[in-house]
């Protein structure tokens, strides 16, 4: 699966576990409009670290906080590259 595919599958799983209504996922969806709360994102970042082996937020390098789903995927794409 592509990084994006894995991210989307984890978004869906976490939304289901947390009883959140996930907005239709598109690249320009703002993360804050996704229906997920901070705890959901915290869980997503941890699970992505388990699956992909990277935490781009904690790489020691400057990262801009992602605003859209597209930004989020791009951040992980760069980190696994």
């Amino acid at each position, binding site marked *: 699966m592509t990084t994006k595919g894995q991210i989307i599958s984890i978004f869906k799983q976490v939304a289901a576990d*947390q009883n959140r209504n996930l907005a239709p996922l598109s690249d320009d969806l703002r993360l804050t409009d996704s229906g997920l709360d901070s*705890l959901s*994102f*915290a869980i997503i970042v*941890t*699970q992505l670290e*388990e699956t992909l082996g990277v935490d781009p937020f*904690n790489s020691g390098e400057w990262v801009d906080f992602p*605003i859209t789903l597209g930004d989020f995927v791009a951040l992980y794409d760069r980190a696994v590259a």
Partner: protein
Amino acid sequence: MTTLRNILSALDPASDAALVGKRESIALSSLRHGSTLAGALPALRGRSVLIHATKQSAAATALIDLDGIARRIVLCTPDLTPAQLAMVAETAAADAVVSDGPDPLVPSLPQHQIAPRAAPASLPPESDAATEWVLLTSGTTGAPKLVRHSLDSLAGALAAVPVGEGRRVWSTFYDIRRYGGLQIFLRAIRGAASLVLSDAGESAQEFLARAAHAGVTHISGTPSHWRRALMSGAAELIEPQYVRLSGEIADQALLDRLRAVYPRAGIGHAFASTEAGVAFDVNDGLAGFPAEFLDRPRDGIELRVEDGTLRVRSQRNAAGYLNRSEDVIRDAAGFVDTGDLVELEHGRYQFRGRRGGVINVGGLKVHPEEVEHVLNSDPRVRMSRARARRNPITGSVVVADVVAATAADEETMGALKRDLMQSCRKVLAAHKVPVTLSFVPSLELTAAGKLVRPGA
């Protein structure tokens, strides 16, 4: 005796300062001689009163009304369960409840309505002694601890804010019923300034847009609040003169990001806890605090590091717990042990987490024992350990290591893992449910037979 009402009575009647909620705005000038509890105040004089409100603005006006009138005010947080509320009422020997909602909260107690606006009222004379303020903070079993303060210990010698001239508009991501938010409420009242209150149901964008609309100049929150604000894409909506972080460890990356977004603002992080009070403010943009803070008490606040944790002795310490003996809160020398581990590194102390392993998930405490209790109650589990894992969004999340009673094939273990996660979701609040659950062959114990906890 200074009361909140005394402070407000000195306010310029023409002041436009207000408590600004999501849908309501209450002019501070209307509270100079008016009340939102008008008819009830005589009956509440000298009493122990629970303040339990849905809206923060209602809690705020009740505080102004009752300080100096009630013998004791108990500022309830909005997340109390009915059983916890009953326990708080009993421990605080409550005589009455004030609330902005219609539903009776403690069936055995009279309840008075907090009106949405202040009405002119003839106020009863002040009580003979200063009002005791009781704040709630979560205890080891998740049951609230009742922490005794006074207006003096909460607001005494508030350190001057390093920046900002002219008209101030305060705001905070915190709920003002928690220590960090209450500090901002008291600063606003003391400075006759407006305060933009957050609303539980709104997003970071909506809140920041409201704060921007009100012209916020000074704003506070936990590092998790600020990470959420940065992620919302709405952080640029406001142009504050002063940004404050407290309640969790402020790391250098976050301080740097805030500096980049608010190049002209003073950015400070503060150390405070409900029990220890405010200990210090750090305004040099660097994480941790200079070691020299220990040698030179500032504003009468003495700090020391003993057994690896930060200790604080000051007039701003809480008086004690309501339901325990006085000395529990202090060590023999009168210092409050914050339980926060610090380590000296290049002339600065850096925070390393909590002793005793309390896990801080986005400002909410999790005691590992309560998670382990759920895991261990499954007969297929021999032992377990819940611990913190660093997380860029909430500071920490809970993860669990589980030792199974008998080794089994992958499929059986998978089923056990699913069952355990399900039990946790059923019993625990969402932030307490382990984010990952790993099976391990064993867990290390200390010589005293206790589970080895990282950082403990």
